[in-house]
């Protein structure tokens, strides 16, 4: 070997080990740095508090917060897996009456803000509500001392409400995984003597596991940062505790410290998710999923399948939507005024923009990670997703400070150099809100697209590369058409979530600016359910259209359709 050759080889081996600044890695780094800003701001406040009340918190309320948070998460995880996975399997692998309707209707509760569902069920199930009233009339009871009735404002109530509004995450992702599985796999299992149930348990379910885990991780992160429901039900979780310390006690350090405890929870979730995904071999090598044979359910099984699919829709959507509709009709004149259409417009525009941006960024990150296969990059991308677990109000504060600092620095510079004051460029604009949405919901895009890309075999990329396609072309021509469903899923999940987002919007918005959520909140915060029914219903409606769109898009993957693979 000549000297030149040796040094070349040397450079090459070193080059592969070194972190090469190619555009994908560099872009991912820049994005991560920007997106992580709010979280870093919170971390900074936690570790350098002005008045350290950690010992006090640890001795008094914190253990209780942690314990009830764990209970809540365990309950919601169990509930959403049970409902989400079984419903997804029923509608993809079995045939029974109404299946085609259930397919999309099962997603409907996603459009319901959990806190609104909480209000509705309190209204129905509390002492003065219709259910208990009817029971009292029938049995002649008079006061609460006369009988026992489950307390809706409790940990159990919170678990039920959150399960019923969050299970669609698990359902959607699991169903999407079942659909993207080549039917040949299931059929092969059947020809090998598996019953449909065994084929599900031994083949479909393990193959879908990454998606289920992602779904549950999303659900648990939503659970962690829910404020409206737990506050209303008086469940003492980390979120409610943090709000009290941060915004009532006005102790930034203490609030941030509780936020860090929550981040520990999230990191644990992310690690668990990754561990579950590591057992790979899930790539589907077939390029043509064909319409599998659904097996028809009869008799008792048919009835059970109907029940499993119908009950979540009833509880999570039909009943609350029905009550809201009746209120909306009754209180039409109170709720409809000239600010309403503008608020609806603002909501839809912001949510659509945020969804588009987040999906693009999430795709960029997920693909960069796939290209580089760098653990560092993957961990950075995961770190960028942490914003999902930070409650909206805290995220907002984490945005306010770096944005404010940036604006004031630019202003000082411009004043010094040119004598012009630029004032606030980012703070108090819808850019701040958009940034908050993207940071908050990037995890949805990244998680969904990473899982989607994970199901595309790397051989596809390799094949494209042998055809002299660059990474970008490989992405556009090969991966995009295959993960189109995942992209739509991510975009729609984010759109719907942004429509519902409240605390960050409240705090970051410009003057005289309302979204549907802030508009509804004016009334809802005073427990005036009737007055806010119309607004709440509009949020729901605006969420339903894309949700139906979503199931349509995903359904289209299903028939024997030519995938545009080069």
């Amino acid at each position, binding site marked *: 070997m000549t000297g030149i050759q040796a040094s070349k080889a040397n450079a090459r081996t070193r080059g592969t080990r070194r972190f090469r600044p190619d555009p994908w890695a560099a872009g991912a780094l820049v994005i991560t740095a920007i997106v992580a800003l709010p979280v870093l701001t919170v971390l900074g406040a936690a570790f350098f508090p002005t008045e350290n009340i950690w010992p006090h918190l640890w001795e008094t309320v914190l253990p209780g917060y942690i314990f009830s948070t764990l209970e809540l998460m365990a309950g919601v995880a169990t509930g959403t897996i049970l409902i989400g996975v079984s419903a997804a399997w029923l509608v993809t692998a079995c045939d029974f009456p109404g299946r085609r309707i259930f397919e999309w209707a099962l997603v409907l509760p996603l459009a319901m803000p959990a806190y609104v569902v909480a209000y509705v069920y309190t209204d129905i199930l509390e002492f003065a509500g219709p259910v208990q009233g009817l029971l009292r009339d029938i049995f002649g009871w008079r006061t609460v001392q006369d009988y026992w009735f489950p307390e809706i404002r409790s940990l159990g109530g919170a678990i039920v409400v959150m399960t019923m509004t969050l299970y669609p995450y698990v359902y959607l992702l699991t169903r999407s995984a079942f659909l993207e599985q080549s039917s040949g796999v299931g059929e092969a299992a059947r020809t090998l003597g598996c019953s449909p149930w065994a084929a599900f348990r031994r083949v479909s379910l393990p193959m879908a596991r990454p998606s289920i885990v992602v779904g549950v991780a999303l659900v648990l992160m939503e659970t962690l940062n829910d404020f409206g429901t737990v506050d209303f039900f008086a469940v003492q979780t980390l979120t409610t505790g943090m709000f009290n310390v941060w915004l*009532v*006690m*006005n102790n930034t350090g203490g609030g941030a410290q509780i936020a860090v405890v929550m981040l520990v929870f999230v990191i644990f979730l992310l690690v668990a998710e990754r561990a579950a995904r590591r057992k790979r071999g899930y790539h589907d090598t077939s390029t043509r999923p064909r319409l599998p044979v659904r097996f028809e359910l009869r008799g008792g099984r048919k009835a059970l399948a109907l029940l499993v699919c119908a009950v979540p829709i009833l509880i999570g959507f039909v009943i609350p939507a029905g009550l809201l509709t009746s209120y909306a009709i009754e209180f039409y004149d109170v709720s409809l005024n000239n600010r309403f259409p503008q608020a609806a417009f603002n909501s839809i525009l912001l949510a659509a923009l945020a969804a588009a941006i987040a999906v693009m960024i999430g795709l960029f990150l997920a693909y960069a990670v796939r290209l580089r296969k760098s653990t560092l990059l993957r961990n950075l991308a995961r770190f960028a997703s942490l914003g999902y677990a930070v409650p909206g109000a805290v995220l907002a504060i984490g945005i306010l400070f770096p944005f404010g600092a940036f604006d004031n620095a630019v202003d000082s510079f411009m004043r010094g150099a040119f004598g012009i004051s630029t004032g606030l*460029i980012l703070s108090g604009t*819808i850019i701040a809100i958009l940034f908050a949405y993207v940071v908050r919901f990037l995890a949805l895009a990244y998680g969904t697209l990473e899982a989607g890309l994970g199901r595309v075999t790397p051989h596809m990329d390799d094949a494209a590369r042998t055809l002299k396609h660059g990474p970008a072309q490989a992405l556009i021509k090969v991966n995009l058409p295959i993960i189109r469903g995942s992209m739509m899923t991510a975009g729609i999940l984010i759109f719907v979530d942004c429509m519902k987002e409240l605390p960050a919007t*409240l705090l970051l918005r410009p003057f005289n*600016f309302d979204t549907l959520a802030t508009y509804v909140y004016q009334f809802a915060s005073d427990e005036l359910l009737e007055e806010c029914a119309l607004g709440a219903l509009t949020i729901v409606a605006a969420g339903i259209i894309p949700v139906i769109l979503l199931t349509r898009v995903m359904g289209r993957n299903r028939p024997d359709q030519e995938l545009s693979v080069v």
Partner: protein
Amino acid sequence: MKYRLLAAMALIVAPMATTTAASAAEVNVYSYRQGVLVQPLFDAFTKETGVKVNVVFAKKGLIKRLQAEGRNSPADLVFTVDIGRLAAVVNAGLAQPVKTAALEKAVPATYRDAKGLWYGLTLRARLLYTSKDRVSKGAITSYEDLADPKWRGKVCTRKGDHAYNIAMLAAYIGHYGEAKATAWLKGVKANLARKPQGNDRAQVKAIMEGVCDIAVGNHYYMALMLKNDKQKPWAASANLVFPTLAGKGTHMNVSGVMMTKHAPNKANAIKLMEFLTSKKAQGIYANVNNEYPIDPNVKASPLLESWGKFPRDTVSLDTIAKNRSAALKIVNTVGYNNGPVTN
């Protein structure tokens, strides 16, 4: 293609993304109070002066926003309830003193900052609501009584760390010190009928439902319930008690207004402050939200007048603000929000 999309987005976003800085005839308000409550006042102000009022309403975190925006903040005024939040803005160094003859004439010295850093606008009494059927008149007359073991399992309140309850406990500390306040809160916790939950009105509803006999709530909720068809029966189930603290009188909190340190529209902001303390605005306040006017020369609403006069507690608002963080610690130490369970 991607760039074209971005450009299109920028075009849509740009016109919406303007932050209004100082301009001719407007004043910018960060409000902790809901639009429905304050909008009639702002409308009246705009009608009278031609000055436009821009509002951001949020119940939490506006102080942080003010802090982050620093000297370029567009906000002129902060509009809030609870002495704790007024004090928080002052402590963060985000307020600037304002002194005018009109303001000092309208607002009694007890209800404004000595340096003019904040001015009270309305007063809110923290009362007891007692069951008409189950609690005889005169059976409970003081906040201290809430801890009396004879009310075991009879008391309902909202969460202990809510600003209204924190201020009440801070006033208690003002009279008795932290040790006695802790003992008192333990007693109240032991008397709770259920885990603290809901807002003040929900406690009165619980009286109607027979869950509890005594609830703590601000006075104006009675007026609000009487105006709402669905809530009228709740109101009808309860009597109002104006309790005393240390034999002095009823605990009062304020809603108030303050000018931010970097207010860009100072002149208009002062106009609005003076308007809010004027007889006209005080009259609107009194009738729209049934709060007690800060100006003793303005009559309260007929309903409030019908409840009669009552002595007010003597602990100063400064003391209450100072004792707030001690109060919150006591709430945590006692585990108040866990409800009547022992722990």
